[in-house]
């Protein structure tokens, strides 16, 4: 005995998923950009001494140098281009690390996920 199964509507379902998938990627990317700017602000707050880390402001050059940008889709980069940034972040043999970037990242992991979740719910 042979049973034949015919599934109807495969092309339209595939087209529907393709559209939704594209939309989901766009929304996720938007959330990641928003989260990037949020983290930039949080790092600056940390440098300004408004979080758990010690204040690292003298002239304001380091704080002003922190920038969020998107270098490739679905990523956000928060960075500083001043040469002494890594000394402040990781410490030296004469100074304790201040960990502005790393602590901010771990403190806000859940918030970044919330950004994405909130956007995805718009689907």
């Amino acid at each position, binding site marked *: 005995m042979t049973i034949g199964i015919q599934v109807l509507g495969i092309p339209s379902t595939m087209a529907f998923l393709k559209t939704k998938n594209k939309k989901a990627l766009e929304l996720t990317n938007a959330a990641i950009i928003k989260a990037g700017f949020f983290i930039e602000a949080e790092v600056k707050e940390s440098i300004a001494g408004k979080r758990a880390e010690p204040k690292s402001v003298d002239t304001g050059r380091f704080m002003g140098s922190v920038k969020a940008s998107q270098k490739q889709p679905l990523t956000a980069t928060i960075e500083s281009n001043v040469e002494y940034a*890594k*000394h402040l972040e*990781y*410490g*030296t*043999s004469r100074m304790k690390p201040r960990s502005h970037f*790393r602590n901010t990242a*771990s403190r806000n*992991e859940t918030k970044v996920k919330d950004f994405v979740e909130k956007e995805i719910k718009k689907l």
Partner: protein
Amino acid sequence: MAITKVYSATFLADTVNLIRNKLKTNITDPLVTIRPGNEKFVLTSYPKRSVTYPIITITDRGIIQPTRLGMSSEGTVISITVEVRIWARNVRERDELFGSAYQYLRTNQLDNVTGLANSNLHDFTLSSAVNVDEEGEAGIRSKVCEYKFLVIIS
């Protein structure tokens, strides 16, 4: 006390001490014959008194709990980031010590007796290695390496 396994109740201290012991035993100190007797080569914090470089410091960089073992389980998987920082007198020494430490950790995961996985440290990953060099000829060259491990707590 020799730490051979990472236990649930003391997983953080066990992880740091285990990595310290493994590196202390298996990485050759370039100053093995001349290092003062009261100084150590591998430490779990940056020493407050003066030191003789090179040294290696092992510290924890925080933990996260990415998942539980199941809906009705109190067991969890914990991701631990361990910072292994090489402090050396020059770039060559820094990079050689980094190479030795990485090579040891990478190639000693799966041994049935001495492997890290057997001690409950799974999924070894090097997530970043950043050079932090101090200015001048005599400036200390350091490399901050962040390793990640998964620990099963049950």
